[in-house]
């Protein structure tokens, strides 16, 4: 089939099914209508097998320079789900489609190939996934820490739910309150401008009320 921009949701779905056959599944398309004119926006979600993930991105890159918004990731219990949020059809008013590719990584084997060679802008988000989820991005050109400081514990990942220890690491600055609460110190001599201002406003309001009181009609 010949795919020409702008694609429709069905075309996108077909395109991926054609290219990757059984390795993509769980297609879910959404259309959300917004505003008075009920203009719809379209999203498409699907899962791709990790082994074919790069092929999927490559396939996407054949259509249009892919715009990778971000990759989000979450701990789903037994596996970790990465969602790559791509956009396609940008530049065509109202036609843009969000393509959300999900990849599931089992907790025992958290490897995912890097796509920085296809989408140079993906590096930031890949590095981020490494440090926050403990995912290992293979062939990543730069695997340094991105956000966390260098001496952040190596085995702690803030976005994982199966980890002990993040709770201790995060300070609970406000928590000591009820028991250890000291009386606040004596009132610091404040100046009068606030009251003054209040008075001024009150008088203004009164005036206004007076004005309002006189019915217009």
């Amino acid at each position, binding site marked *: 089939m010949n795919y020409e921009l702008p694609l429709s949701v069905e075309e996108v779905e077909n395109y991926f099914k054609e290219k990757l056959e059984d390795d993509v599944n769980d297609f879910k398309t959404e259309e959300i209508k917004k505003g008075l004119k009920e203009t719809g926006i379209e999203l498409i979600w699907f899962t791709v097998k990790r082994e074919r993930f790069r092929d999927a991105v490559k396939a996407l890159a054949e259509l249009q320079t892919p715009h990778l918004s971000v990759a989000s990731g979450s701990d789903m219990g037994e596996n970790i789900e990465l969602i790559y949020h791509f956009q396609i059809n940008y530049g065509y008013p109202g036609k843009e489609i969000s393509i959300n590719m999900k990849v599931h990584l089992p907790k025992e084997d958290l490897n995912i190939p890097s796509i920085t060679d296809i989408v140079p802008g993906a590096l930031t988000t890949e590095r981020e996934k490494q440090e926050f989820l403990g995912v290992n991005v293979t062939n990543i050109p730069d695997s340094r820490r991105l956000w*966390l*400081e260098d001496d952040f514990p190596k085995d702690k990942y*803030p976005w994982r739910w199966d980890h002990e220890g*993040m709770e201790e690491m*995060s*300070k*609970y*600055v406000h928590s000591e309150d009820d028991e250890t609460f000291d009386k606040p110190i004596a009132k610091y001599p404040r100046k009068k401008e606030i009251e003054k201002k209040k008075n001024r406003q009150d008088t203004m309001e009164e005036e206004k009320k007076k004005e309002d009181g006189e019915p217009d009609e």
Partner: protein
Amino acid sequence: MDLSKTFDKALWVFHMNSGSCNACDIEIVAAITPRYDAERFGIKLVGSPRHADVLLFTGPVTTKMKDRVLRVYEQTPNPKVVLIIGNCGDTTGVFFDSYAIEGPIDTLLPEDAHIIYVNGCPVRPENIINGVKEAWIYLEKLRGDDK
């Protein structure tokens, strides 16, 4: 510390964001622009802590900024006053339970630091000027000028 009267009337200010949400920071900039014009009190934003008399700290101090906050404090010549702008600098405010927060700022600074807290989230530019005014009063008290 030698705090003559002139000191409060020529305050040079160094602004440092240690992880705030920028709202207070833009309000600080707003305070020097025409509507509020802090320069009429001799307040001047300077580019180096070495020139500063007043440090405006905002933000709950992220882990990565902690050392720099302290360094800036040390680099500033005495006498100096710290103005903590915004609730997130004062108590860490809305960012109270993160692994990446070291604050609040006043717990990091030495005991004898002169700190004025300016509350608000964000603080209005007038409140920043008000904070400077409080700093004056504070300094006058320190000197014993308040009778």
